[in-house]
């Protein structure tokens, strides 16, 4: 027989009321905690923006020709508010014609590579992915090498690099679609990306082998190492086209990217047209990656480590991750380019520096990163 006298803890009104109080108290505390977290994320993004602004101005000071930060500030203010000229014409040329385009291109390329990396990592559900996973860099490198071999001018080299970068990714996507009979799975796409990448790497070697070792070969090698030294305002204006077409959709779709990190079935069941969304993101991220390579050569590591850094700081939600990656990537590449042009009396190729700084930085993050909040 069941005893009817034993009070059931759940049904005792007093206990129930008490539980309710605790419940609502905890919920309030949770809300506060959440609010705090949101604030923390906002502060982190704001602080990184401030750092970017500081690095932006400091970058004008660095370099052989000395311009003080005061003068830089005054030149900018004077241009904005039509103040009388107190600086030399050389200073103005250094600030506006030499350093500003370079600073702007570092910011844009750093941002482009980082957004591209964050988006690729999201759709491939893998934090080890970088923007060259589908062959964008190898393809662009090959395009540039061919253009150099054919004696094309800078514009020709950029165009070839850009088109071949897009073509390589298109090829990887197409092959994966054919192999997967219309349903290209993520794994298949990574594999075909590797194949296409390897193929174009080999083709780069072919162009190097065929190149004249006195002038063409060094030109190709040097171009592949990456550098921002020869970028003009015209180049930047041209780069803005793929940058805007690539970055804006990713920023707009950033929340949906979260859903793509779940399995195909789930994302579909949650109401997403996975195939279309993935194709759009791949296209946009590739525009950014290929455009960057076309403008500045192959700059590795940025697209891999910056999304990681951002994930450590603001969490994996792409709603925060994409803006954070954008700002931190811009800051990082600007910082590295400052070292590239000011550390030694000669320019260090930036692609080498990003790897030399990036590799230990990445190891440091692996060692120090709070594991749960990141990987």
């Amino acid at each position, binding site marked *: 027989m069941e005893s009817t006298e034993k009070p059931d803890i759940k049904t005792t009104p007093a206990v129930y009321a008490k539980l309710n109080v605790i419940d609502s108290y*905890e919920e309030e505390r949770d809300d506060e905690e959440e609010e705090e977290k949101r604030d923390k994320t906002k502060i982190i993004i704001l602080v990184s923006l401030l750092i970017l602004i500081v690095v932006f101005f400091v970058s004008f000071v660095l370099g052989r020709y000395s311009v003080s930060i005061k003068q830089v500030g005054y030149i900018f203010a004077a241009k904005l508010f039509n103040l009388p000229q107190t600086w030399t014409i050389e200073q103005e040329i250094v600030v506006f014609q030499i350093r500003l385009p370079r600073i702007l291109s570092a910011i844009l390329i750093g941002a482009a590579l980082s957004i591209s990396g964050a988006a690729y990592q999201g759709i491939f559900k893998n*934090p080890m992915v970088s923007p060259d996973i589908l062959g964008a860099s190898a393809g662009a490198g090959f395009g540039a090498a061919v253009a150099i071999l054919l004696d094309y001018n800078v514009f020709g080299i950029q165009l070839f690099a850009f088109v071949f970068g897009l073509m390589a990714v298109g090829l990887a996507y197409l092959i994966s679609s054919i192999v997967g009979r219309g349903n290209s799975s993520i794994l298949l796409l990574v594999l075909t990306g590797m194949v296409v990448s390897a193929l174009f790497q080999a083709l780069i070697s072919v162009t190097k082998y065929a190149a004249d070792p006195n002038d063409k070969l060094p030109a190709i090698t040097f171009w592949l190492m990456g550098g921002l030294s020869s970028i003009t305002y015209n180049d930047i204006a041209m780069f803005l086209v793929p940058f805007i077409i690539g970055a804006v959709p990713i920023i707009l779709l950033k929340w949906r990217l*979260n*859903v793509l*990190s779940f399995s195909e079935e789930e994302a579909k069941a949650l*109401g*997403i047209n996975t195939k279309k969304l993935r194709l759009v993101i791949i296209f946009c991220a590739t525009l950014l990656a290929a455009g960057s390579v076309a403008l500045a050569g192959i700059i590795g590591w940025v697209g891999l480590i910056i999304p990681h850094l951002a994930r450590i700081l603001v*969490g994996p939600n792409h709603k925060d991750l994409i803006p954070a990656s954008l700002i931190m990537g811009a800051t990082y590449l600007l910082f590295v380019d400052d070292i590239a042009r000011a550390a030694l009396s000669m320019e260090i190729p930036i692609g080498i520096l990003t790897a030399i700084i990036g590799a230990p930085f990445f190891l440091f993050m692996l060692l120090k990163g709070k594991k749960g909040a990141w990987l």
Partner: protein
Amino acid sequence: MVIKLEIRNITCGYGSTNILHHISLIIETGQIMCLLGPNGVGKTTLFKSILGSINPVEGSVLLDGKDVSRLTNKYRAQVIAYVPQAHTPAFPFKVFDVVVMGRTAHIGIFASPSKIDLEISKDALADLHISHLKNKIYTEISGGERQLVLIARALAQQPKLLIMDEPTSNLDFGNQVRVLEEVQKLSGKGIGVLMTSHFPDHAFLCSTQVGLMHRNGDIIIGEVDDVVTEENLRLAYGVEVKITSVQREDGQRIKTCVPMLSLS
């Protein structure tokens, strides 16, 4: 309003191999249908065809008379939610972020979740009594908690029908019972549930309808008492069972199924 999902005589599978042959069943809002059957019999394949991931070679899946394969994912997701088995995603999202993703089908393509979406997600967590998990990291909680979070996500989707893939697998005994209680509550609220299970007892506990799938491709559909019999279970699983019953406090009898281990 009753919404009806009708699977009409479908044959489907992967590539050239068909796993399901001429299967038909109907599920309506407020019903619970439990699918039983041995591993590899095609329960997951059936779900995939309902969710539009694979197109049937023959027959069709109709949602209120409309062919599911012609619906957009967004439209379908506003009516049918899917609860997968607990899994580990690549990124350590917060539990609340995961639940809010249930709102995807209700949010504009370029938009982020609004205050209302966040409220609905909070309510979904509260409904399952897991509000305390809200700010935890999804990849760090236990498998049982993850399963509850995925159910909360499906609730945030505000569906009329719920497709649950073995919602009790990976769960300890207490959590299994809790999930079944939730399933029952959901049907009380007018949601239709189609779930798979490995335990005939779960069908006795909460389902109104049972589909027992056999390896040879047959499916027996009907009231739980008619379908889950000693004879049918032996045919489906190839093991001996006895079905007995216990009396609940309110006098209702509940059946249960006890396997007879072969004594050799």
